[in-house]
């Protein structure tokens, strides 16, 4: 999350992804770093035990949102 915020601050488009139980953490961190409306993406928790194929599926599902966020930026 913080890497994404720092990249954006340095002018590099970023798309941070968290699992949904960490949305509250991501938002709290964005507030602490002075970007309360920082946009990031969330996917269902957990991902640690997913198989390679399941992870690929997750990636496919979120890829268009990632592309959209990278292209639209934080405005």
């Amino acid at each position, binding site marked *: 999350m913080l890497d994404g915020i720092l990249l954006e*601050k*340095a002018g590099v488009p970023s798309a941070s992804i968290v699992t949904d139980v960490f949305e509250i*953490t991501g938002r*709290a961190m964005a507030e*602490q770093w*002075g970007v309360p409306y920082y946009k990031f993406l969330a996917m269902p928790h957990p991902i640690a035990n997913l198989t390679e194929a399941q992870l690929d599926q997750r990636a496919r599902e979120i890829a268009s949102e990632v592309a959209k966020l990278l292209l639209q930026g934080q405005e």
Partner: protein
Amino acid sequence: MEGRGIPAVVLGTDAFVSLGHTASAALGLPHLPVVTVSHPIGGVAADDVRKRADGIVDAVVTALTRDPAPVSATPAAETVSGPDDLDAFQEFVMTQGWGDGLPVLPATRSRVARILGRRRIDEVVATLAPRQGIATLQTIAANAALAGAGPEHLPVIVAAIRALADPRFNLFAIQTTTHPCTPLLIVNGPIARRLGISGGPNALGNGYRANAVIGRSVRLVLQNVGGTKPGSTDRATQGHPGKFSYCVAENEEASPWEPLSVERGFGRHESTVTVCGSEGPHNVNDHGSTSAEALLRALIGTAATTGSNNIYLGGEPLVVLGPEHAQTIAASGWSKRDFKRAFWDGARVPLRAFSAENVERFAVIDPERFKDKPRDTVIHVTKTPDDVMVIVAGGPGKHSAFVPTFGDTRSVTVPIAE
């Protein structure tokens, strides 16, 4: 420039270094790098100036190629009004998000002033992750007042906060991880006895005001200045009881060896605090063994487990030897260094003890130790003997403790300025 996200570096002569730091902290950029050459530079030959410039080129490049420093989100300390009734005050503190759940004392102006004494209230001690909150002597004292500490405890608390901000400690991760870790404070030197910081019976437990309030003050500073809230920015899955307070003195009188501080280059008469990103202590019961070799079996058996962060991330787990166990080991003629080597050698787990899925994951994190290794490869709990930390603490009895750490963290020892 830095405030607008453009990396910047301040150049000056060493005579003005403290001015540079104070000014950048006052502007909310306490991490702004300051690079200095020796003073003065006025009236110096061009060749000499060039030579001094050559000496700082690397430092300037490093400063300009890092991530820009954040503008700190911490406002200057402000005074707020709370209820006078002590029970209502507890509710108020929890609503504000300042407490740890146990009762706190009101941090009134007069109590904070008493803790501070004649110190400069705006002196910046550290910048604390994850919020990059600026810990000044005043904000530290306010949290110490909440925790029930007195002025005599402040030097230890301040030193610990300074140590926690050392990049080697990796405070950001310690503060936000799902792993159950929190700073364990180990106090060495004469200040422990003077303040009554216990290293004796039940030293890792309850019953000692100095241990309790020093550890608790540090936790409240980390929460209220560093900005971690349980379930929000502090994402510990379960946490552990030491997160209320976790402070112990080494029992130097009962140790057969040099204290931790002396190992790290300080004198016996210097007081230090060492911070470790630690789990809770796990007991090692051995009432039978009468030699170092025999006692080692129980100690390494307790440490060599498959569910430890240290085994795949490295780091410096701590062995807290009870004085009787320490005497048994020393009576076999072992130095502390001998013990560390034997412990490192013995505390290991064969790769086959881990699930194949876990090994696959470890191989991504640390290919050198885990990738494509035969199943009978042994994995040491620490990467080197020097990574085994050892102190002596506790009272009578045949017990010791093993304290794993977060792994991706190094302990930091600093002197306590009195």
